[in-house]
């Protein structure tokens, strides 16, 4: 071949190539233009609808200026605080929806990750609870309609002693495991003594044990985990009555007992496998594998696990003999797993109408993507906000030299522009900016606080100036360098990029961002827990998903030694005192006052490690044909799906 021919050939080739590229761009642009007008047309009504929905469904959930929410939530969240709440068992025979539910149909749901564990023991992953929740029941549960109230599940009713220290649960009659065995208090004792056993990590299934009498075991160090005081913690009065003993009166206890993690498992099956008593990563209880549950597990819940394809899907069928008469409504639920790498496919699947709902408020999508989906499907899918989603924060490693000075931490608290983050990352969907998430001060009060008030106001400008002064007082007037560590999950990298820019502009704090896969990130944060080690991270954008909407959860997650998001084991005697006194305070108003005091102190940053950014919302994306759905107030419950039905 002659070079000249090749040359000519290449010219034409390039022209053709340019054509192909142009075509590609055309496809991309054309597609967008085509849909753009439609999207715009829809926008106005959709936005109105959304506002209307927000106004009726969750008045407190939208926007930072909307303060009544936390108040209202707090009011409904605390009814069980009164020493003797009367049980209000739900009449399940006549479900509440007005139009009358329709039986049958298959629900298609997305899951955000493969099931980590099928055994609730020590379970702390949302990916697990959304899988096993349909298979088992709790003693008590959150009400499917009034999602802040607690109602019976296995229990028909319960009493609380006058001193608030003893909870007695009365179980329903005629409840059976799928193998025909009767469900009795023995099952509860077997399961909940596992959760209470100090040899097992607390996970979320055992969070209630922080309120009960501590379980002691024979010799934990020597590996003998036999409880020595089990009856003092919980005991069966008879076949249908169980009693839990608390260390102090607290309304939070039952809220933790009601989350979907605290499942009751078949006692007779737990006893049949010696691996079940104590959790051992290498030799897990046989109920920890979905395959084993299908093959030989026995369950009690509204659905029965039928098929599980690791990493791809799991399918459940209606339990025909479910002890709640008339439930569940749908015949079958199919769950398809869409991990973070399949985000695009997930959106495409929703757009094509191939899924009915996301199972849970966490799907790897961002608020913006939810809103876009609402628009692009003309409102076929509705994003239901979960008011108490995530406590987003900027986590400072106080063991590192940069953050040892409280002036520096104070300066950061003042310099961070929370509104900008809310606007750019969360599409203005954020809730309270208060450190205690609206459970102490109302958000409108916090909005005037230094550091929180808008940066373009005189007050905000004062804050920035004061922050610079503080840096100078700490001897780092020109800032310093710091390494940001962030998990590649959700919006974390976006948040950190903005924070980094803000701190760089305001205080001269510069640095690189290191992004890590989720688990590796947690492992890195964990390095600072070791005594005498400051760990391998310095500053991070993290969130703490609220387990229950209660101040105890905020303290426990962030401000107490050993807390989930307290990787440096920061602690303060003051906070500990406030925590203890509010924890046992049964009068809601008095409790709120204590928390207000604590909140003011936390925000002063005399000593603190967590710069609260906002109470972030999460969303349940649900097709409008799916009825019986009411958004829960936190992301950690409402996965049994026995009340959902399909209007098709």
């Amino acid at each position, binding site marked *: 071949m002659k070079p000249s021919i090749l040359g000519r050939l290449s010219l034409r080739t390039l022209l053709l190539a340019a054509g192909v590229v142009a075509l590609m761009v055309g496809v991309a642009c054309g597609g967008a233009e085509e849909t753009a007008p439609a999207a715009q047309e829809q926008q106005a009504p959709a936005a109105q609808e959304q506002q209307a929905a927000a106004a009726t469904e969750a008045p407190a959930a939208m926007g930072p200026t909307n303060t009544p929410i936390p108040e209202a939530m707090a009011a409904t969240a605390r009814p069980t605080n009164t020493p003797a709440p009367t049980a209000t068992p739900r009449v399940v025979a006549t479900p509440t929806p007005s139009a009358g539910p329709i039986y049958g149909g298959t629900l298609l749901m997305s899951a955000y990750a493969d099931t980590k564990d099928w055994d609730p023991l020590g379970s702390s992953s949302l990916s697990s609870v959304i899988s096993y929740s349909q298979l088992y029941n709790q003693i008590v549960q959150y009400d499917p309609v009034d999602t802040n109230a607690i109602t019976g599940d296995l229990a028909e009713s319960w009493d609380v002693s006058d001193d608030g220290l003893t909870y007695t649960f009365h179980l329903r009659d005629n409840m059976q495991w799928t193998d025909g065995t009767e469900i009795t208090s023995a099952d509860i004792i077997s399961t909940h003594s596992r959760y209470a056993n100090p040899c097992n990590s607390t996970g979320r299934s055992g969070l209630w044990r922080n309120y009960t009498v501590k379980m002691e075991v024979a010799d934990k160090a020597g590996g003998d985990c036999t409880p020595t005081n089990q009856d003092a913690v919980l005991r069966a009065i008879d076949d249908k009555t169980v009693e839990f003993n608390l260390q102090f009166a607290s309304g939070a206890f039952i809220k933790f007992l009601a989350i979907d993690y605290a499942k009751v498992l078949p006692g007779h099956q737990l006893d049949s496998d010696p691996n079940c008593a104590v959790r051992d990563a290498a030799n897990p209880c046989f109920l920890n594998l979905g395959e084993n549950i299908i093959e030989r597990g026995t369950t009690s819940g509204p659905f029965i696990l039928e098929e599980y394809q*690791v*990493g791809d899907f799991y*399918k459940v069928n209606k339990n025909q003999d479910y002890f709640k008469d008339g439930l569940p409504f749908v015949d079958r639920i199919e769950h398809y797993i869409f991990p973070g790498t*399949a985000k695009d496919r997930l959106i495409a699947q929703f757009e094509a109408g191939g899924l009915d709902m996301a199972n849970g408020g966490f799907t790897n999508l961002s608020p913006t993507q939810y809103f876009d989906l609402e628009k692009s499907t003309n409102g076929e899918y509705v994003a239901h906000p979960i008011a108490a989603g995530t406590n987003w924060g900027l986590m400072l490693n106080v063991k590192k030299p940069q953050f040892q000075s409280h002036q520096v931490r104070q300066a950061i608290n003042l310099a961070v522009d929370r509104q900008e983050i809310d606007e750019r990352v969360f599409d203005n969907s954020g809730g309270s900016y208060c450190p205690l998430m609206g459970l102490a001060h109302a958000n409108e009060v916090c909005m005037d606080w230094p550091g929180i008030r808008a940066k373009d106001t005189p007050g905000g400008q004062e804050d920035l100036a004061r922050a610079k002064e503080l840096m100078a007082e700490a001897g780092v007037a020109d800032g310093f360098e710091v390494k940001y560590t962030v998990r590649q999950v959700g919006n974390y990298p976006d948040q950190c990029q903005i924070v980094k820019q803000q701190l760089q502009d305001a205080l001269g704090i510069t640095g690189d961002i290191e992004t890590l896969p*989720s688990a590796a990130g947690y492992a890195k944060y964990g390095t600072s827990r070791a005594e005498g080690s400051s760990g391998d991270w310095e500053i991070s954008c993290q969130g703490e998903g609220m387990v229950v909407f209660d101040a105890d959860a905020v303290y426990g997650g962030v401000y107490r030694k050993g807390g989930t998001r307290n990787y440096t084991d920061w602690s303060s005697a003051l906070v500990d005192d406030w925590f203890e006194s509010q924890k046992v305070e049964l009068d809601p108003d008095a409790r709120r006052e204590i928390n207000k005091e604590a909140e003011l102190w936390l925000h002063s940053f005399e000593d603190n490690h967590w710069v609260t950014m906002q109470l972030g919302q999460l969303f349940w994306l649900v097709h409008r044909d799916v009825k019986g759905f009411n958004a829960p107030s936190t992301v950690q419950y409402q996965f049994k799906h026995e009340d959902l039905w399909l209007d098709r």
Partner: protein
Amino acid sequence: MRQYALKRVALIIPTVLLVSIIVFTVMRLLPGDPALVILSEGDASFTQEELEDLRRQLGTDRPIVIQYVDWIGGLLRGDLGTSIWRSGRPVTKLVGDRIFRTLELAVLAIIIAVVFAVPLGVISAIKPDSVIDYFSRVIALVGISIPTFFAGLLVVLVLSRGFGWLPPLGYADLWDDPWKNIQQMFLPALALGFYDMAFIARVTRSSMMEIIREDYMRTARAKGLAERIVLVRHGLKNAVLPILTISGWQFGRLFGGTVIIESIFKVPGIGTLLIETVFQRDFPTIQAIIIVIAVSIVIINLLVDLLYGLLDPRIRYA
């Protein structure tokens, strides 16, 4: 030929051994102690004691050589260890369940690639400078210039937006539900095979161009054979060797490509498993997947070489 084959097979042993050492060493370099990863997941509050206990249980506290010998021993028995993340599932089962899907995807991709590439290459070799020639060359260059993941994402976008169609959810194995399986596998295989199609078309074109100029082609034509027969019997037959070699070699690359394509199209093969386990620091599973892929590639290369030796007498000099 026999001697050549024996020598070639014998050479595999040191290669596989080296492969295993490389895999094992690289995995030990991974930051993030798996015990720490397990304990820190979700609600992390644990003691140093718990951490050491878990390390003992997982066996990661032992000297590295012992761990290696232990692992190799298990490997020879077909035991790839226990997944430390997925509830103690045996890795052999995890990988075994998925390897065939990945293989199916790769085979389908290579078939699609060859089916399109060979005619394209032959035509452009016979008629250089024709429209088809330009087309195939542009396709070839575009094919290797667009990242696989971008092509995959575009396919999903065009399908869902343009046609409102997506492959059905919930993977079905070929023998359970062939129709559903093909619906699910065809597009990922197409996206995956695009690059290889480009590559194979180029090789076909250049080897055909060389062959067309060979004396025996002229002889065949001179004998008065029909052009079609000349091209297929004498031309393509001789071009098969380089095409075969390249296809075999591409197979290895396809395994890599499946990692990306599987995650976009949600095919539960070993590619998706690999990514998940890398994020989870699940050493036994990562090791197992990589060693299985590497050994498969070594074996495929061996087969290609042997076939090559069988077809081309010149190679049997050894």
